[in-house]
């Protein structure tokens, strides 16, 4: 429908995410290979970004860790969308008691800060990939339900739906033809902004020791490991931090662009910017 213009900024961000997803394939060395002979070395031709306290190649660890950090975020978000979007769609469309129950649950989840829920959940469930996935999912689905529901409520009152109803259009037809196209853009925008936020959350959880466990490389955990050696080898901490920063900044920039493209009502945009 709309002419697709190649936006170099968008292309660059997508390329970055793509490269990170195949990060392990690009890693020059085994990220878990311990070689105490070369511990805490600065950048060299053998180790482009130097080595850590166990002599492991930092570049390889950052690239491999990308898949854990970014992959976990993308997976968790996909699941959050899979749960949150249909729930919001149905809740907004049929309304009534079902909507009331869903909204009370949503209210409770919104009232509890996402970091606290995630920390408590992952703390209770213990470290590990799946547990972290559950913790992120628990705090992220609610944003999608809320956004989609409010979009549906907005669109539901539109006059053109009277025409569809008069013509005898079925609920599934109206949802398919009118509601779904309406929510795709904003949902995509929220998801893109969320990538960055979830990466930060994953890294924060790992940093306080509740995320993915060593030795598997994860950016937040790497950063925490590097803390002790900061005076001797600052790159141990600086590099994973920078990696997080760049990916998160790119994703939220892309999300901002999408927000602008898919006009969201100011209230939704505000809510999204704090909920995401």
């Amino acid at each position, binding site marked *: 429908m709309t002419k697709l213009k190649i936006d170099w900024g968008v292309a660059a961000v997508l390329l970055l995410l793509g490269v990170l997803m195949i990060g392990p394939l690009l890693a020059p060395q085994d990220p878990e290979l311990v070689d105490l002979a070369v511990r805490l070395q600065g950048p060299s031709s053998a180790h482009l970004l130097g080595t850590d306290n166990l002599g492991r190649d930092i570049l390889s660890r950052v690239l491999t860790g990308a898949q854990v950090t970014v992959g976990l975020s993308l997976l968790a978000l996909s699941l959050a969308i899979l749960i949150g979007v249909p729930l919001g769609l149905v809740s907004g469309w049929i309304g009534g008691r079902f909507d009331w129950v869903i909204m009370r649950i949503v209210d409770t989840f919104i*009232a*509890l*800060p996402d970091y606290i829920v995630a920390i408590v959940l992952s703390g209770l469930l213990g470290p590990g990939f799946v547990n972290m996935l559950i913790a992120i999912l628990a705090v992220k689905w609610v944003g999608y339900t809320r956004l989609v529901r409010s979009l549906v409520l907005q669109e539901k009152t539109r006059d053109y739906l009277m025409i569809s109803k008069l013509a005898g259009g079925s609920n599934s037809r109206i949802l398919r033809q009118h509601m779904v196209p309406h929510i795709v853009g904003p949902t995509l925008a929220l998801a893109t902004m969320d990538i960055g936020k979830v990466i930060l959350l994953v890294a924060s959880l790992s*940093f*306080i020791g509740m995320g993915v466990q060593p030795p598997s490389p994860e950016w937040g955990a790497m950063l925490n490991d590097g*803390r002790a050696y900061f005076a001797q080898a600052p790159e141990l901490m600086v590099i994973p931090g920078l990696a997080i920063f760049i990916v*998160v900044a790119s994703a939220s920039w892309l999300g901002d662009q999408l927000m602008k493209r898919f006009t969201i009502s*100011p209230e939704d945009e*505000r809510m999204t910017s704090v909920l995401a």
Partner: protein
Amino acid sequence: MRPATWLVPLGKWVAQGIGFFFVLTIISFLIVQLAPGDAVLSMLRIDTVAVTQDEIEALRNELGLNDPAWQQYVRFLGGVLQGDFGASLMTGKSVMGELSKAFPYTLMLAGATMAVVIVITFVLGGLAARFRGSLVDKGVAAFCTAGAAVPTFWLGLLLIDLFAVRLHILPSSGMATAAGLVLPTVALAIAIAPPYIKILRNSLIEASGREFVRAARARGVTESVIFGKHTLRDSLIPLVTILGVSLGSLLGGTVIVEVTFGIPGVGKLAVEALARRDYGVIQAFIIVVGMAIFVINLLVDLSYRALDPSISLKGAERA
């Protein structure tokens, strides 16, 4: 804005508060029931290396863990209502005592951060709106993107390295002195402020284009009155509406910052309790934080009503 109109939703608030309190107690009760691992095991493991099955059973009976769930809940609720969450496994002292010792630190950190956030929001948001489209605006936008993207703990560590380790200006951890508050506050404020700055900028711009601003200008009202009275008030409303939600993220942020800077606040206490499965502390943490957020939301709702009289007056005495 007569008192009567303020009091209208009071009953609703009380009902909501009670409802939310029960939801929180149920959540914190269930968390312990459903959590993997045995609370008794983690309790015993602290003192003894080897435990027998009999010892476990004895303790279970003693703690009432073999009773039906509802009896346990009622007992738990009774304790909560008296402010009794039992003793902490970590220290053996009362959970409430531990929590109330930690609470002032968190409150101080959150309060100081909020103050800093408000200042930078008004300065940067105001500048960006005033010089819309200029380099200043773009600079503020870049600051927002960067601030929202930088991991708080990482920024905290870098700040410690720069100001404490290298320059020796400020302490690296603890909050023994007011100076100790500076770095954690800055690190947290940078992470929290960006959405506020963006919203204030946009709503200031939006407000200055409103028809009623044009109408006031057409009456010859001075520009300073138009800004101070009409535009500013209009642009504060969207800011306040998101305040309730985002103050939650402030509390979440304090956890990370407290761990990073070694501040003995509620967040650090909770993280340590989680690591040791000290359930009493976790339960108390959930309920206290949850109720704190409820109170914050109430205050936000109140200020929202004060800012926009139509909320409480509409329909009440319509012409």
